[in-house]
């Protein structure tokens, strides 16, 4: 036998012959790959491996050799004898694998839609498994939402029951009361009538009796008189006769005079009703109504709640109306004739696990127990499909997945995996979730089969040692029909089959049993099937009846949602404190040009002006802080703050100032106050930084600290506490914004939509302004004169302002935007546009009104901003105060320092002075806008104080504006339309980052490829986003920077190899600061270079070394809103922080793996909440520091699970705090929530779209597009 087998073995592959080809020397070898490999292509010869005979190859290649038919017969015979399984690849022809491009027997892979070899396929299946695991994790994590909802629904059921019972009781009670009253009254009336009747009756009876008596008496008298008086029969005495006569006279008299009241007794007693009986009946009949509060806007509500809260399952929450709608669609699609648009019907008669058009599908070679049932099922299902379609249990999955569905976000990944492919798991036999249409996998026959198989395998492996009893134990496995095709190649399996064949009787026996069992199973499945519709019917009796219920629940969800928003905001009170100023400011700038026609209510005007004043003064009063700080240079951790009472009180200034801005002018109006600021402001900015964080952490504590620190003036202290309340009130109001909005929306759609449009435009202007360039590039900005004017205090003052202000402002503004944004995007799909906009308008309105003025009446919506804006500049108050503040600053002891520092900054045209210039320029514009003082201010060489006066005013207004930014104004000057354009552009893209991130997977576009010409890269490393979403790439091994526009078109490139100015040596990180300067980590030159926006060299700092300000392979680099430069000093395992002019500020981190230590930190990012995010590469984690280098948190471990890293490189943070990590070792991008919890990941190794080889830097654009440097592929991919 063994020899026989050996004869069937190819000498080359040592395997059973596959397609044996006979050489002229009579030796046979497999055609592929054996014979193929023997070919000497040069000589077109084959040398027989056995006898070394050389043969010419036929014209059409080795396949031209005759097939060794005899051998093939033997092979078949062998198979028949041994019962061995045929080679699955027999009859197939080798092709190149689509993935590894090796020649192999390929099968089509569902994952990548390529023909791939089994190994690659295995890998892909692993990927799928992992993906499933990952998604499953997500599902698991998100499942609690459903259970929460379930709990909610249960609770709702309970409360509904309670509600109904109580209502029923109420109704009963009313009924009882009414009935009792009715009964009482009725009885009373009846009694009255009875009594009346009886008395009357008695009277009448008496009368009757008396009359009777009278009549008889008189009758007898008459008779007597007739009989005896007229005759003389009887002797009457005269007196007797006289008496008789009298009696008769009396009788006559009586009869004549007697009048009984023989009135109309028929109407004696009347029943009069107090009310019209008909009415009364009506009243009673409708004595109460059941009002059922159907919360309106169910869709909005649900979509809101769906969008915002968590990355959980969205679609599963899809309300059944949607589902039914899809069902409807689907029915429409199917009834005409099954499939439309070539899309594969998810039903199509297929079952779970069948391949579409695959060779398994047609039952012929189906194996096992399924074989019997299959046919039945098919028939049945086709027969039933119509019924079911009416019941609406079609594959909702597929439909809701359709591309148009904007809510399919979460599932996009799974879907794309399965889309357009065979839906093996979704078949109509399967019970599906009535809401989501998600199939229950374990109902699917395929799954059942698989599970059973594996179970049986287990069982079998246990059972095989035992000699005989198997057939009974596993009747299901023993379908005789299936044996030849059986795929199970286990030896025992074969043995068992053989055994079976021998013992036919047993097998037929088992077969019968098998049948029975399958039939039974079939039955049970049937019953299942018949059950499920009923189930679903029970759960959702009809799409309509439920709405109230779900609406309620969704309503509550949306409430939760808003609560969430509140919670989000709460931890950052500093931000929320500010909205009044910021929103006011933005609108204001806008208003002044566009909406000047709006009416201004005077009350508002005054109110606002006051408020703006206070804000302004706050800002101005804060200003003096920085100089000293700069002077102090290294006072990075603010130890000094505590040393002097002055400075400690300065700690409190910030919150105080902030609160005052909202609440009252008292604060700012008092000169002492502002003076104290200017005096105490020394360490303000440092302490402020801390405070920002403190505030973020604990609002309460802040008040405490401020009260503690402001010992010097306790009066203000109390003020501190007071203003807080209005702020909070404002917050609360904002928080109920969505609700307000909903109610408001009913009232005024028009105004709502109006304001909504404005709102979005604000958002836009804001987002733009963050990256806006036009302001930076303004012509005057470059001019030296401007630099001069910006010198000394004023210049640095502005700097201060922006320094201290922007961060909180941004965030507050942005937070708000976000909360709205999150709610928005889904709306259009479910609501009419009108509702959508109005809703949004309501939102914005309620929010802004709450922020700006609590007492703003509803209808002044449109005029909300205008008075503010008008008064903003014009108010005398503010002017006088500003001058006051400025003067007080001038007298402050800090001033010289300020001058000096400004001077130094100016000296080399450093960023500091350019900051100043830029800011100055900005304010100068403002001035122009106001009073056309610009020219005067600019041209005159007047004293700085007067200039400051002229500038001071706008400055102050400006400082409240930082986020609205100058470029905003620019636009207003130049083209008012540009806003709308930008809006239109931005709105579509940038709305909900979170949702957006979940959608990320598909490549938007990619830039470059290997090469050194412009637009190509060699090992791109750092990437940054510049103003106007410019894409800036550090093309490391081409030693240059390349700049692309936001669509990937190359704009310019600069830099070359070398170590002089403007030359690079394998630069790594790149950053762009707010004024468009490029900051470059010139890696092998161990220095940082700063280039101006046009690519000209400005300065460089650093050299190789490990002391402060020196580098060892600086890598990632970033800059924060204040212009500080953070450098990943990779080989020194630390982060160094510099001022924008290159002055060393501080450092943190040391080599190690403890918290706070770093090992080869590669990239760094700073959020706008001043969280410094560092990719601690060799520790496989991300660490988050505060700006002082204290660890806030750290997350990630080594691994490839979600949330784990392998050598994380690039990090980026978007303006909402979402953290993006280029997980280089895992070749994927991971996205985390601001709280560092995992959101999602995508990407894998490879060179295709969305695949990576060695990730480096990552950056995120303001519209949420993710840029990533795909190093080994020498390209930048954009998602």
């Amino acid at each position: 036998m063994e020899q026989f087998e050996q004869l069937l073995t190819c000498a080359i592959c040592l395997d059973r012959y596959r397609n044996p080809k006979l050489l002229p020397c009579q030796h046979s070898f497999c055609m592929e790959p054996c014979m193929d490999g023997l070919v000497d292509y040069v000589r077109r010869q084959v040398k027989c491996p056995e006898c070394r005979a050389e043969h010419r190859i036929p014209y059409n290649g080795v396949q031209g050799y005759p097939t060794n038919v005899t051998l093939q017969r033997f092979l078949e015979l062998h198979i028949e004898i041994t019962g061995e399984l045929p080679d699955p690849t027999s009859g197939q022809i080798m092709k190149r694998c689509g993935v590894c491009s090796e020649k192999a027997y390929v099968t089509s892979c569902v994952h990548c839609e390529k023909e791939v070899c089994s190994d690659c396929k295995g890998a892909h299946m692993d990927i799928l498994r992992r993906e499933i695991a990952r998604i499953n994790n997500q599902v698991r994590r998100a499942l609690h939402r459903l259970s929460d909802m379930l709990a909610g629904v249960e609770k709702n059921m309970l409360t509904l029951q309670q509600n109904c019972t109580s209502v029923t009781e109420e109704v009963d009670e009313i009924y009882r009361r009414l009935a009792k009253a009715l009964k009482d009254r009725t009885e009373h009336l009846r009694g009255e009538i009875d009594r009346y009747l009886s008395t009357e009756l008695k009277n009448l009876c008496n009368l009757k009796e008396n009359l009777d008596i009278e009549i008889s008496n008189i009758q007898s008298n008459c008779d007597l008189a007739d009989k005896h008086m007229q005759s003389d029969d009887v002797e009457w005495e005269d007196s007797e006769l006289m008496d008789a006569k009298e009696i008769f006279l009396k009788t006559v008299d009586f009869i004549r005079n007697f009048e009984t009241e023989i009135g109309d007794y028929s109407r004696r007693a009347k029943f009069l009703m107090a009310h019209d009986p008909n009415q009364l009946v009506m009243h009673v009949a409708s004595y109460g109504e059941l009002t059922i509060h159907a919360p309106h806007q169910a869709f909005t509500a649900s979509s809101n709640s769906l969008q915002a809260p968590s990355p959980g399952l969205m679609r599963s929450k899809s309300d059944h109306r949607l589902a039914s709608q899809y069902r409807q669609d689907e029915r429409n699609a199917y009834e005409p004739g099954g499939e439309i648009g070539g899309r594969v019907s998810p039903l199509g008669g297929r079952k779970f696990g069948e391949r579409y058009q695959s060779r398994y599908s047609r039952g012929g070679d189906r194996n096992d127990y399924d074989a019997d049932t299959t046919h039945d099922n098919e028939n049945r299902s086709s027969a039933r499909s119509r019924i079911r379609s009416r019941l609406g249990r079609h594959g909702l999955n597929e439909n809701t997945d359709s591309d148009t569905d904007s809510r399919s976000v979460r599932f996009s990944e799974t879907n794309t995996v399965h889309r357009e492919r065979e839906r093996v798991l979704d078949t109509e036999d399967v019970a599906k979730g009535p809401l989501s249409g998600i199939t229950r996998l374990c109902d699917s026959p395929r799954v059942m089969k698989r599970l059973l198989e594996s179970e049986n395998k287990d069982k079998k492996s246990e059972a095989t040692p035992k000699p005989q009893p198997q057939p009974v134990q596993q009747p299901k496995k023993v379908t005789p029909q299936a044996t030849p095709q059986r795929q199970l190649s286990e030896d025992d399996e074969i043995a068992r089959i053989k055994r079976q064949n021998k013992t036919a009787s047993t097998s037929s026996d088992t077969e019968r049993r098998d049948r029975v069992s399958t039939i039974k199973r079939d039955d049970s499945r049937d019953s299942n099937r018949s059950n499920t519709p009923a189930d679903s019917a029970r759960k959702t009796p009809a799409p309509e009846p439920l709405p109230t219920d779900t609406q309620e629940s969704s309503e509550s969800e949306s409430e939760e949602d808003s609560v969430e928003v509140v919670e989000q905001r709460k931890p950052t009170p500093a931000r929320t404190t500010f909205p009044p100023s910021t929103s006011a400011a933005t609108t204001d700038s806008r208003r002044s040009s566009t909406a000047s026609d709006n009416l201004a209510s005077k009350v508002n005007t005054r109110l606002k002006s006051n408020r703006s004043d206070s804000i302004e003064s706050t800002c101005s009063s804060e200003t003096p802080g920085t100089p000293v700080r700069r002077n102090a240079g290294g006072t990075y951790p603010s130890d000094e703050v505590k040393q002097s009472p002055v400075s400690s009180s300065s700690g409190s200034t910030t919150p105080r100032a902030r609160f005052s801005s909202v609440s009252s002018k008292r604060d700012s109006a008092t000169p002492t106050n502002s003076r104290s600021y200017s005096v105490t402001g020394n360490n303000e900015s440092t302490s402020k930084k801390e405070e920002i964080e403190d505030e973020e952490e604990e609002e309460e504590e802040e008040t405490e600290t401020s009260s503690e620190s402001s010992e010097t003036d306790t009066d203000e202290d109390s003020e501190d506490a007071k203003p807080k309340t209005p702020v909070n009130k404002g917050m609360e109001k904002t928080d109920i914004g969505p609700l307000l909005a909903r109610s408001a929306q009913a009232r005024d759609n028009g105004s709502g939509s109006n304001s909504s449009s404005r709102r979005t435009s604000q958002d836009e202007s804001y987002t733009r302004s963050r990256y806006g360039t036009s302001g930076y590039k303004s012509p005057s900005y470059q001019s030296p004169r401007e630099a001069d004017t910006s010198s000394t205090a004023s210049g640095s003052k502005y700097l201060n302002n922006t320094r201290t202000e922007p961060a909180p402002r941004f965030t507050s503004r942005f937070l708000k935007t976000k909360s709205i944004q999150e709610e928005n995007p889904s709306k259009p799909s479910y609501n009419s546009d009108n509702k959508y906009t109005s809703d949004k308008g309501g939102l914005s309105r309620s929010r802004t009104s709450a922020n700006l003025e609590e007492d703003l009446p509803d209808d002044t919506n449109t005029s909300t901003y205008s008075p503010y804006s008008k008064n903003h500049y014009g108010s005398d108050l503010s002017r006088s105060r500003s001058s006051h503040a400025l003067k007080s600053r001038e007298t402050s002891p800090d001033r010289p320092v300020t001058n000096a520092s400004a001077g130094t900054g100016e000296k080399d045209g450093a960023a500091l002075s350019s900051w100043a210039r830029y800011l100055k320029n900005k304010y100068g514009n403002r001035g122009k806008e106001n009073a056309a003082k610009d020219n005067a201010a600019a041209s005159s060489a007047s004293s700085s104080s007067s200039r400051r006066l002229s500038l001071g005013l706008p400055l102050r207004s400006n400082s409240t504006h930082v986020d609205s930014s100058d470029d905003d104004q620019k636009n207003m000057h130049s083209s008012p339309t540009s806003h709308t354009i930008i809006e239109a552009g931005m709105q579509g893209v940038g709305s909900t980052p979170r949702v957006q991130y979940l959608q990320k997977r598909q490549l938007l576009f990619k830039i470059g490829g290997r090469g050194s010409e412009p637009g190509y890269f060699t090992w791109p490393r750092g990437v940054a986003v510049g103003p106007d979403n410019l894409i800036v790439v550090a093309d490391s091994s081409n030693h240059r920077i390349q700049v692309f526009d936001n669509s990937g078109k190359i704009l310019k490139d600069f830099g070359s190899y070398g170590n002089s100015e403007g030359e690079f040596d394998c630069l790594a990180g790149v950053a762009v600061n707010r004024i468009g300067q490029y900051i470059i980590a010139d890696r092998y030159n161990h220095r940082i270079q700063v280039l101006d926006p046009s690519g000209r060299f400005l300065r460089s700092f650093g050299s190789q070394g490990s002391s402060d300000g020196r580098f060892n392979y600086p890598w990632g680099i970033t800059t924060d809103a204040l212009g500080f430069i953070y450098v990943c000093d990779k080989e020194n395992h630390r982060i160094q922080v510099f001022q924008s002019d290159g002055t060393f500020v501080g450092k943190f981190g040391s080599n190690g793996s403890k918290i706070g230590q770093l090992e080869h930190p590669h990239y760094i990012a700073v959020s706008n909440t001043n969280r410094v995010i560092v990719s601690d590469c060799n520790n496989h984690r991300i660490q988050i520091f505060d700006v002082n280098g204290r660890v806030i948190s750290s997350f990630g471990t080594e691994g490839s699970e979600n949330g784990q890293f392998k050598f994380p490189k690039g990090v980026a943070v978007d303006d909402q705090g979402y953290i993006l990590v280029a997980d280089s070792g895992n070749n994927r991008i991971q996205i985390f929530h601001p709280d560092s919890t995992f959101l999602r990941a995508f990407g894998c190794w490879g060179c295709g779209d969305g695949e990576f080889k060695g990730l480096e830097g990552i950056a995120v654009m303001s519209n949420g597009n993710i840029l990533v440097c795909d190093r080994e592929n020498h390209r930048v991919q954009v998602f």
Partner: protein
Amino acid sequence: MSVLPRRILKETQRLMQEPVPGISAQPDEGNARYFHVKVTGPEDSPFEGGLFKLELFLPEDYPMSAPKVRFITKIYHPNIDRLGRICLDILKDKWSPALQIRTVLLSIQALLSAPNPDDPLANDVAELWKVNEIEAIRNAKEWTRMYATEN
């Protein structure tokens, strides 16, 4: 590293299951294409009693090209040079895919019993072998004792 072809797996399996007498080939733990080979000196040859270590490497296109085999143990043999390289036709131009690891090793074992000084690789050895076979054999025995025996 691409996947191991079935043939190599099969050969390895068979080598382990049915080892050739006097020959053992163990695949390296880290590289299944690299084998640690030990060949005993054939009887009635000057190498009798010796245990010769070889290394064998299956190149990427094996079996279409010959395995690379080299003596690690020093051996005094006209067809094996002092670096251990073997002059054997089937390892060169006479390679055939129908040959296997075991056949190669058997051939090498056979080469030990039948040195071919007419096709020398180590010229000095071959010279001596031709001129003074007795001394050559004595040298071979000496080397075998020195290098190819335990301890």
